C-alpha cells in the first residue's frame, strides 16, 4: 500500500467530530456497521463465505490438499491461512510482493483462528505418518472501506464452518463436514481523534492513529491481540476496549450462529 499523504484537513475534521462524540459516517463510538454474511458462495471452494460490513466486502474460500504429516506430529493435519489484498480492493492497494500491511493482516487473522483451537488438527489425520488433510483458508478482499481485519476473520470462520472435506474426490472415503468446535471473533478498535472507535471505516483509518485487534473465544478467553501502527495507549483505554469486545463478539457470534 503506497503511503498516502494523510490530509491534515481530514485529521482535523475527525478530531473535531471526536470532541463532539460524533463519527464521520454518523455512527456512535462503539457502533459497528451492518454485517452481512453469506455462505456457499464460491462454486470451486469446499467452503466459502462472503462478508459485507458497510462498503467493505471480502470473500473467504476453503480448499483441501493432502499432505504428509510432519515427522514430529504424525497424527496431525495442518491449517494454512493466507490473505491477499490485490489492487481490485482499493485505490491504494498495489500489485507486487505482499506489503508489510498485508502480511500483518494475514498473520493476525491466522493467529486468532489457529490459537482458538477451533480446528482439531488431530481429526485431519487420514493415515498416521502418511496422509493428512491440509486445510487452506484463503482470504480475498474485493472492496476495502476499512477494517479488513474483522471482515477477514469473520469470513474465515464462516467459511470453515461451511466447509466439507472432499474425501470422495481424493478417494479416501466419504465427504463430511469439517468440524469447527469454537467460534473466535475478532473486534478491532482504531484511535481516531484521540479516542478509540470500533470498526473504523476507510476515512477513519486514513486519518487515524494506532489500532488494536482482539480475538475472543466463546468463553471470553483471549486468543490473540495485536497493536498496529504508531501510537501510545494506556491500560485504562485497553480495559475499556476489552470490555466492549466481550459484548460485541457475542453479538457477532449470534449472527453467525443464526445463519
Amino acid at each position, binding site marked *: 500500500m503506497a503511503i498516502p499523504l494523510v490530509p491534515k484537513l481530514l485529521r482535523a475534521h475527525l478530531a473535531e467530530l471526536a470532541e463532539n462524540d460524533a463519527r464521520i459516517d454518523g455512527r456512535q463510538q462503539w457502533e459497528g456497521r451492518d454485517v452481512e454474511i453469506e455462505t456457499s458462495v464460491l*462454486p*470451486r471452494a469446499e467452503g466459502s463465505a462472503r462478508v459485507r460490513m458497510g462498503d467493505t466486502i471480502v470473500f473467504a474460500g476453503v480448499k483441501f490438499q493432502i499432505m504428509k504429516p510432519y515427522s514430529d506430529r504424525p497424527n496431525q493435519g495442518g491449517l494454512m491461512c493466507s490473505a491477499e489484498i490485490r489492487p481490485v480492493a482499493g485505490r491504494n492497494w498495489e500489485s507486487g510482493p505482499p506489503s508489510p500491511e498485508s502480511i500483518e493482516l494475514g498473520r493476525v487473522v491466522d493467529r486468532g483462528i489457529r490459537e482458538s483451537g477451533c480446528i482439531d488438527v488431530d481429526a485431519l489425520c487420514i493415515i498416521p505418518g502418511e496422509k493428512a488433510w491440509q486445510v487452506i483458508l*484463503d482470504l480475498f478482499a474485493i472492496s476495502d472501506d476499512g477494517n479488513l481485519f474483522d471482515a477477514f476473520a469473520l469470513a474465515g470462520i464462516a467459511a470453515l464452518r461451511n466447509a466439507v472435506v472432499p474425501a470422495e474426490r481424493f478417494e479416501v472415503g466419504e465427504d463430511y463436514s469439517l468440524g469447527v468446535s469454537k467460534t473466535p471473533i475478532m473486534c478491532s478498535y482504531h484511535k481516531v481523534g484521540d479516542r478509540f472507535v470500533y470498526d473504523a471505516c476507510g476515512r477513519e483509518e486514513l486519518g487515524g492513529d494506532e489500532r488494536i485487534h482482539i480475538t475472543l473465544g466463546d468463553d471470553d478467553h483471549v486468543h490473540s491481540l495485536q497493536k498496529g501502527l504508531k501510537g501510545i495507549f494506556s491500560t485504562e483505554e485497553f480495559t475499556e476496549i476489552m470490555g466492549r469486545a466481550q459484548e460485541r463478539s457475542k453479538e457477532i457470534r449470534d449472527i453467525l450462529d443464526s445463519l
Partner: protein
Amino acid sequence: MGGYGDVQMIDENGKRVDGRGPGDLRDITIETDVVPVADGSCRMTWGTNEVIVAVYGPMECHPRKLQRQDRAVLDVAYNMAPFSTTDRMRPGFNRRSREISKVTKDALESVVLLELYPRSKIRISIEVLSAEAGTRCVGLTAASVALADAGVPMTDMVVSVASGKINDVVVCDLNKEEDNYGEADLPMGILPNSGQLVFLQMDGDLSQEEFNQAWQYNMDAAQMIHNFMVDSLKGGEA
C-alpha cells in the same frame, strides 16, 4: 487443447453434454457497481465462471517511467483467486496470467479514448473468483462494462467470446468439460457495432472451413452478449 476427441460429447441429436445446441451460449448475468470503493465495477457470471472487475482512475501514473506524455496508459491485471479452481491455485506471478493481462490491455487500449487523459493511468483489475473455461473472454467483456460504468469514454465496448471444436464439430462457447477434451479454441474480441476485432487468439487444430464456422459463431454470439451488456448498464440486471 487437452485431448483429441476420444470422449463423446455430442449426442446423436447434435446436443452437447449440457443440453445446448452447437451455436448456443451458456447463461450470462451482468451486474455493475459491485465494488463500492471503485470508480466503476462489474460482476459477470457466465456458466459457473464468476469474474469481478474494478476500474480506478483516470489517476496519476506512477511509477513515472510508465507515464506517456500524450495519452493515458491502462494498467490491466488478470488474476485467478486461489479458490477459483478445483485444485487450489497458488497466488503470485505466472506466465499465463501475464500474457492474458497483456492481450486484454492491448484489446482495451484499442477502444478507450486514451488521448483524453495524458500522463494518467487507468487501473483495471480482473479477478476470477470461479473459473469454468473461457475466463479471459469473461474478463475482457466484464472489463468493458466496468469501464463504461466508470464513465471512461470508449469508441465501442469489446465483447469477447470463444468458439471451438469438440468431436470434430465446431461449437460456440466451450464449457469446462468441452474445453478439457476439445480440439481447438478460438477466442475473439469483437466491436459489436462495426464487427471489427481488437483481440484474437487460437490454439488447436482447425481446417480453414472449420475456422470460418467458428469465426461466424463468435460474430453472432457477440451481438447477443452485447445486448445483455447494454441492458445491465441501463440499470437492469442482465
